[in-house]
């Protein structure tokens, strides 16, 4: 347990809609170790980004319950001033859309420098600039002096994403959260950015939470994977286990719907129904139940829990034991 850099216990983040609170992140527990990449996969509305924001304490109007601990220090009850000291120094975040994640009216150099101003007041102006140039070099920007003076709109998408990364790693954080860091980028640029994140992780020995909907990115990057559905984690396992021996019906369905996983021109697997919206989430019983109506009701638990079916492999609800795809005859039993 001492390896755990971050541990999240029963974290719930609720948002007010009308006059009720709805949990977008619902009782999530997980851990991230040093020098490890934990991928959190889910579709839109699964709560994965809300989870990332909750860990960073970025929600200004959410009700947060449960606990987030960074190296044993509880974050959820920290006063804002203490939290500000941690954010950007011990935890850095990489955002999805680099154009909107940067202030359009500030040169990128100043935006990186701001992270230094806030956490290293000892640095002189000259030292800060030197450090910023160094950071620009570190994230692979050729001609850092030139880039320093640019406004965000004057840079390409790949370059901007490097700036966003430079901001996140400016103070060598212990924890790095990357929220869909490559979604807006072309494949070759995506590869470069992923390589960069991997390299920086090793350089500074940080734990990384990688939030993504792209199973390809997961397969490239992750050490462990947590799959989220409707605000909950439904399965956690090491990458190889998750890809070779997925258990939860949702994980298995997702893996089946990737075009690359099937014969060209064959029919792709489609999950029945739609993801319920936040207000309409089933709060009782297995949340995936309505998407697999052909599975007997009795297969589900009343209060689905995470079951450790092999060391480090957790699956929510008991329905995985009885799950089969439509047309599949035999019923598989548990993990091997």
């Amino acid at each position, binding site marked *: 347990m001492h390896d755990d850099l971050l541990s999240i216990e029963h974290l719930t983040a609720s948002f007010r809609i009308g006059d009720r609170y709805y949990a977008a992140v619902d009782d999530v527990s997980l851990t991230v170790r040093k020098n490890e990449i934990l991928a959190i996969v889910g*579709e*839109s509305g699964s709560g994965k980004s809300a989870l990332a924001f909750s860990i960073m304490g970025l929600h200004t109007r959410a009700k947060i319950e449960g606990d987030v601990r960074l190296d044993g220090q509880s974050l959820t009850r920290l006063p804002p001033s203490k939290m500000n000291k941690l954010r950007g120094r011990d935890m850095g975040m990489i955002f999805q859309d680099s154009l909107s994640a940067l202030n359009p009216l500030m040169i990128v150099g100043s935006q990186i420098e701001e992270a230094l101003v806030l956490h290293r007041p000892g640095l002189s102006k000259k030292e800060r600039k030197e450090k910023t140039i160094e950071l620009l070099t570190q994230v692979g920007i050729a001609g850092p002096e030139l880039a320093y003076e640019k406004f965000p709109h004057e840079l390409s*998408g790949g370059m901007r994403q490097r700036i966003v990364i430079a901001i996140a790693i400016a103070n060598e954080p212990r924890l790095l959260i990357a929220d869909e860091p490559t979604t807006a980028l*072309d*494949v*070759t*640029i*995506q*590869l470069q950015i992923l390589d960069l994140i991997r390299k920086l992780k090793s350089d500074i020995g940080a734990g990384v939470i990688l939030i993504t*909907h*792209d*199973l*390809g*990115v997961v*397969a*490239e990057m992750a050490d462990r994977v947590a799959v989220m559905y409707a605000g909950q984690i439904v399965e956690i396992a090491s*990458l*190889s286990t998750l*890809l070779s021996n997925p258990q939860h019906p949702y994980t298995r*369905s*997702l893996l089946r*719907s*990737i*075009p*690359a*996983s*099937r014969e*060209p*021109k064959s*029919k*792709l*697997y*489609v*999950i029945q129904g*739609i*993801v319920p919206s936040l207000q309409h989430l089933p709060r009782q019983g297995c949340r995936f139940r309505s998407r697999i109506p052909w599975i007997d009701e009795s297969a589900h638990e009343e209060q689905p829990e995470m079951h450790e079916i092999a060391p480090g492999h957790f699956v929510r609800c008991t329905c995985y034991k009885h799950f089969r795809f439509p047309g599949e005859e035999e019923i598989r039993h548990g993990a091997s």
Partner: protein
Amino acid sequence: MALLEVRQLKVHFPGRGGWFESRTQPVKAVDGVGFRIEEGQTYGLVGESGSGKTTTGRAIIGLNALTSGSVTFQGQELTLGKRGGKLNFRRDIQMIFQDPYSSLNPKKRLLDIVAEPLRNFERLSPLEEKQRVRELLERVGLSPDSIYKYPHEFSGGQRQRIGIARAIALKPKLIIADEPVSALDLSVQAQVLNFLREIQEEMKLSFLLISHDLGIIRHMCDRIGIMYKGRFVEQGTTEDLFERPQHIYTKRLLSAIPVMDPAKREEQLRFREAVNSEYKEAYERYFDHDGLAYPLKPISATHEVAAPEKG
């Protein structure tokens, strides 16, 4: 005879001009592209942002004016009788757009959205029209009773199917689909892709599928053209390109596809490094001094690669 044949298509946009502004070179968004789409087949246009793939699709349907070149549909020259370089808009060619949120007018009911092409080309009584729209909605798997609903009442996948219903309303022969699923979640994406294949078989449709996602392209397409800076670098059957890629740019693109097997991670890493060093070393052999691809040359009956005149 091919259903659609595009020859030497060029779309250039004027550079910035006006008072006190120095006129700049035109932007050659599409610079001499040619391909054929056979009936009932799917042709994939692949490229990164700025490669000109979207402009090519838009030019074929007449949303961008051609600078030069010709587009022949069922043996008929669409460029003939053009005004201002614009093609005659054809009911046989329809388009599906990328973003199902912005491509449907939020103030219109489904009835009006889906019936729009019908109103342009066919004279139907309101009753007949309603009947047709109901059938179309049912065809794309939506409730026929939803004709009076508005787009915001539907999810992303459903909206994309509304877009498809509009596109197939006139029973077109060719549909140009520009990144039709890239805004959708994986599970919804699968649904839309399946559906596109279903209507293709049922209606003998041809597709021009524009995408940056090689996984989808491989799954859907018979033939593929790879674009880079407005030109083709390679063209061939899906098998040609995925099994025997020739151009260094194609190889680089393919090597960037994520591998789903973590056991092959190391292997893939080495492969990428090899491709990358080849890319650096062979760059000048594959691109001219402007960094553009050479004209295509056939290397087999189905497979063409951009290569310099000599060797």
